[in-house]
């Protein structure tokens, strides 16, 4: 059990910067997910913690020990790879016990530890098989078993579920969460899938272009994104972004999205947005905060009519798309209330959930 700390970590490959100065504190037993698009430096960061890549500059601590120059085998970490990386010529038992055998553990203890890990992962009857006799999900379990038996200070997961089919991925995701509740070890998990990040993490680290954009609980990064990138990356379908101008309307403020659509800013936000009056800004609102308009409009919300462009029924809800000055906007409505394509529909935007982004800094105000 240990905390992990990264201090001003920089990694460059042949003068191409991959990671540009990362500071991160991971507390003991915490489940941290590094998430971001491909090439954002998340895997490189993980590999530096593992010791598979050397940091160009900066300091990495595991526990209280500075590990920059410590080889992987002495860092007391275990890693699960995207493509499992099982030893093909060894049985499941041999795969899982390889690390312990190298460290010359007594045989009874090895057997005990492997059995215990196999029970957690429900692979007890696979121990005599070879990797090629296993399915993708089973191989992934073995890879995790190999990590668990070592009882390391830190678990590192490098996109462990990307090779599984959609159904199995959801199942294994739950499994990983369950395992972390049983084996509470500090975990760093890398993924490009924001749903995985949200469901698994105690804290999500959103990376973009070799930098950390935001660190926060899933709730925090969803509701209070700090940058336009985070706002767009977290949530599916992605947040609607529209150019707007902040204007005054008597005592209150409005955001004007087009000639025909201006939405009132809720009073709670007025103080925050007043310095921006007259400026060109970006208005952000999630699809789930544009609902069908029925009955009375709640406080802080605004109703408007829009001509529907595309209607996508999803079963439990329906996505409706409409254009505002050529920009497509998505709303999530009750299937029973969804209008038809080409006709106007009354929608309600919950402006308590709106975000205003400065287009120059791309920061959320």
């Amino acid at each position, binding site marked *: 059990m240990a905390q992990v700390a990264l201090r001003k970590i920089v990694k460059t490959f042949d003068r191409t910067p991959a990671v540009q100065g990362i500071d991160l504190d991971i507390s003991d037993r915490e489940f941290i997910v590094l998430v971001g698009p491909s090439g954002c430096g998340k895997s490189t960061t993980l590999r530096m913690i593992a010791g598979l890549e050397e940091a160009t500059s900066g300091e990495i601590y595991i526990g209280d020990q500075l590990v920059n120059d410590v080889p992987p085998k002495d860092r007391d970490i275990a890693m699960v790879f995207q*493509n499992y990386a099982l030893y*093909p*010529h060894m049985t499941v038992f041999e795969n899982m016990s390889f690390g312990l055998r190298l460290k010359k553990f007594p045989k009874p203890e090895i057997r005990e530890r492997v059995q215990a890990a196999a029970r957690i992962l429900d692979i007890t009857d696979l121990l005599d098989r070879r990797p090629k006799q296993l399915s993708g999900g089973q191989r992934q379990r073995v890879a995790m078993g190999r990590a668990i038996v070592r009882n390391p200070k830190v678990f590192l997961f490098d996109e462990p579920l990307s090779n599984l089919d959609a159904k199995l991925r959801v199942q294994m995701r739950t499994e990983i969460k369950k395992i972390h509740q049983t084996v509470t070890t500090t975990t760093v998990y890398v993924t490009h899938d924001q749903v995985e990040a949200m469901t698994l993490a105690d804290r999500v680290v959103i990376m973009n272009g070799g930098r950390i954009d935001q660190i926060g609980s899933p709730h925090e990064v969803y509701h209070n994104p700090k940058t336009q990138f985070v706002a767009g990356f977290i949530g599916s379908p992605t947040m609607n972004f529209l150019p707007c101008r902040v204007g005054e309307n008597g005592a209150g403020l409005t955001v004007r999205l087009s000639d025909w659509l201006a939405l009132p800013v809720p009073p709670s936000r007025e103080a925050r947005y007043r310095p921006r009056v007259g400026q060109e800004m970006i208005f952000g609102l999630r699809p789930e905060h544009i609902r069908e308009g029925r009955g009375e409009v709640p406080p802080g919300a605004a109703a408007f009519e829009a001509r529907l462009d595309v209607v996508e029924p999803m079963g439990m809800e329906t996505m409706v798309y409409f254009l505002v000055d050529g920009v497509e906007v998505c709303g999530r409505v009750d299937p029973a209330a969804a209008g038809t394509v080409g006709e106007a529909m009354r929608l309600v935007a919950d402006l308590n959930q709106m975000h205003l982004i400065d287009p120059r800094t791309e920061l959320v105000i």
Partner: protein
Amino acid sequence: MSTATATGAAGQVSRVRYGSISRGRRRTLFWSYFFLILFVIFFLTPPVYMFITSLKSSAEISAATNPWWVYHPTLSNYIDLLTQNQFLIFFRNSAIVSICVVSITMVVSIFAAFALARMRFWGSATLATGVFLTYLIPESLLFIPLFKTFAYIHDTTGIELINHWWVLIILYPTLTVPFATWLMIGYFSSIPKELDEAALIDGAGYIQMLTRIFIPVAIPGIIAAMIFTFTVSWANFLYPLAFTTSADQLVLPVGIVTTLIRGDVYAWGQIMTGALLGAAPPLIIYAFLMDYYISGLTAGATKG
């Protein structure tokens, strides 16, 4: 009239037939077998002829009878050769040389290939290409400088390297190590990188990574390299011809030719018998190792 022609043409188009798939497959198989049999005949004719001749007495060989049939089969050639002390010495020399060369080559090339394929160091890529380039230099160009080198060693240290069968143990690796290394580099490179990273994290050092992961996984490649090395050292003719002369220092290929051709007298029966017996060990080894030569041993290591 024009409409009639058009209908006729259309009718013809609709009558175009596709051969059935199974007929197409049969046709393909027929030609595959045709060429396979052609090659089998081409390659098996010499050994069959050798075998037939080895069963004939000298009198029958020189008689004008059908060369493809044995009228009075005899094992005298085999008995003569196998009771001859000289032939057994050739055989022993060849066996020791080949076993030593295979061992030396495998040790050197496995270590070299592992270093070149995995331990990315400055100049490793150039070095890997260089290894292969040395293989491209023909032995017929190499033996003269080697001869000069041996002479120099003799002049400076007094160690006589020429006309000793064991010197072939030093010579053959110059031919086998480059190719075997190159083969093993290719094989090691096909092993997924994550496998060594997993081993590194599991606590293995480079030597353990090699002995416990790479060698077991690369067994098919190692066997291919061993077969190649054995063939080269068993069958090489030029080096033993150039570097050994005394009858007790010869290896099989040169021994058969130099001792069984006396002046202009060719002991054809014994030559054929000797060649056949000499070809037997590689054949037996191939047959034995082929069972282990199973590719796809890496299946299951990673996705796919």
